[in-house]
């Protein structure tokens, strides 16, 4: 039986990056993907930062199915009726200058899979890895039902739901408090309608993020991404908060879509797809053991996600980790050593690139983002304040500070705002 240099479980961003890195270096690679095709099980909000992808596939936007680049970034606080937004329009004129790219996972990953195959790796789809093959403590391959596949190293890139990471004793089960649930609708709209409603043209795209009533004040938010001829509209909420408050994300997304600030954006659009996914959001606090004898783990399966409220990085980390895993295996092959003492190199690489550094820097962010005032009191305060300023009751106006103080009454104290600002400074 053939022994592969590496078997990669899962053809998402982490798995494809690892497979591509190794195949390009001439290693004998097998990728096992449980979906009918690459990308079939993959779903996300919408956009990634470009540098890692560009390192892997220089100039990828020229041939990959990229929807749009990020030109406008809108952050909004919303209450049931009102919405206050910060609208940032940035300078990039086209894909080659863009910091961020909007893509749809199922379409984009299929393309990435084709690049991996071009580089010489074998991708076998429709195959669910059910277990490992062990030789003593060392993993020497995987089982797909009754079939065995042998390899020097297994790279686990099978996503947030990885059952294999537990079987490899790299981690226990994730907890609901450390997970966010994202639900999304892809809604078809003609290109001209998107351009008119969102004030963009050509390849320009928009991301809108909403905080407040869209999650009933629970940790999370709403989002809208513009694709070429559709919108991605969704809500992300902490899973444990849904359970504790007996709220369904399927109801939240309907309410979000009906908000007076949101409905005009997708009006008359046609629903194409409804999807859902979990995101591991507690960063370094939930990160498992990253390697053992004959195995490495990368991407969502290893909780490599960073959420600071303003930044959400997952795919970028996954790809960077995939590359690091690939380079580690290449070096391990040179040494002929696939034990954990050799694969330890993987963790060193992640510590020296941005993945673990960023997760360390924002170690406190996940806890900070559980503060209910961010999703409740502050959106109410911001919208209430604007409402008061722009309201005239025919009587003499009061000075703005008085209006501010009155808006805060019963919602939040000055002391709390100061304390939250201090915590934000430390966490973010």
């Amino acid at each position: 039986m053939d022994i592969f240099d590496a078997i990669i479980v899962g053809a998402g961003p982490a798995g494809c990056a690892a497979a591509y890195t190794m195949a390009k270096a001439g290693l004998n690679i097998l990728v096992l993907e449980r979906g009918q095709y690459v990308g079939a099980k993959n779903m996300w909000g919408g956009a990634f930062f470009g540098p890692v992808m560009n390192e892997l596939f220089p100039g990828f936007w020229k041939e990959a199915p990229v929807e749009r680049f990020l030109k406008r970034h809108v952050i909004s606080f919303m209450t049931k009726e009102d919405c206050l937004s910060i609208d940032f329009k940035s300078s990039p004129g086209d894909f080659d200058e863009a910091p961020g790219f909007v893509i749809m996972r199922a379409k984009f990953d299929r393309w990435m899979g084709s690049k991996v195959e071009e580089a010489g790796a074998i991708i076998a789809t429709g195959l669910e890895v059910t277990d490992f093959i062990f030789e003593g403590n060392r993993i020497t391959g995987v089982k797909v039902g009754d079939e065995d596949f042998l390899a020097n190293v297994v790279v686990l890139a099978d996503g947030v739901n990885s059952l294999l990471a537990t079987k490899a004793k790299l981690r226990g089960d994730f907890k609901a408090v450390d997970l966010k649930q994202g639900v999304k609708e892809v809604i078809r709209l003609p290109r001209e309608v998107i351009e008119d409603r969102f004030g963009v043209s050509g390849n320009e795209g928009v991301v809108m993020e909403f905080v407040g009533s869209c999650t009933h004040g629970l940790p999370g938010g709403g989002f809208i991404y513009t694709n070429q001829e559709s919108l991605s509209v969704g809500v992300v909420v902490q899973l444990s908060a849904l359970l504790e408050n007996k709220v369904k994300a399927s109801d939240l997304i309907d309410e979000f879509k009906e908000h007076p600030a949101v409905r005009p954006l997708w009006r008359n659009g046609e629903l194409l797809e409804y999807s859902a996914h979990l995101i591991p959001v507690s960063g370094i606090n939930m990160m498992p053991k990253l390697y053992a004898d004959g195995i490495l783990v990368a991407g969502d399966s290893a909780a490599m996600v960073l959420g600071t409220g303003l930044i959400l990085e997952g795919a970028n980390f996954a790809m960077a980790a995939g590359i690091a895993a690939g380079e580690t295996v290449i070096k391990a092959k040179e040494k002929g050593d696939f034990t954990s003492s050799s694969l330890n190199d993987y963790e060193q690489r992640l510590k020296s690139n941005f993945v673990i550094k960023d997760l360390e820097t924002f170690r406190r962010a996940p806890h900070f983002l559980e503060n209910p005032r961010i999703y409740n009191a502050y959106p109410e305060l911001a919208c209430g304040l604007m409402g008061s300023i722009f309201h005239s009751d025919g009587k003499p106006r009061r000075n703005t500070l008085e209006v501010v103080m009155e808006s805060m009454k019963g919602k939040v104290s000055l002391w709390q705002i100061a304390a939250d600002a201090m915590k934000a400074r430390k966490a973010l």
Partner: protein
Amino acid sequence: MKIEEKLARNKFDIDREVHIQVDEEKCKACESKVCLYACPAECYVLRAEGHVTFSYEGCLECGSCRFSCDKGTIAWVNPRGGFGVCYQYG
């Protein structure tokens, strides 16, 4: 739009084998019934008689029920390779 109509827009290749097993006895004894709020596809439905029924056909394989139920009622695995939801957009 009802959840069934939304799910009808998705492409599924539904396996004959049920991939998520719900222990009926434990489910009946459970009071919190968090599965009702965990599942974004509303595969878990509370019936008038007070018990929960589960249907796997609309499962989006997100894993939320698996990480939510703390009673050990749900035996969760993926559908067999190639089956289940097939996202066209993602």
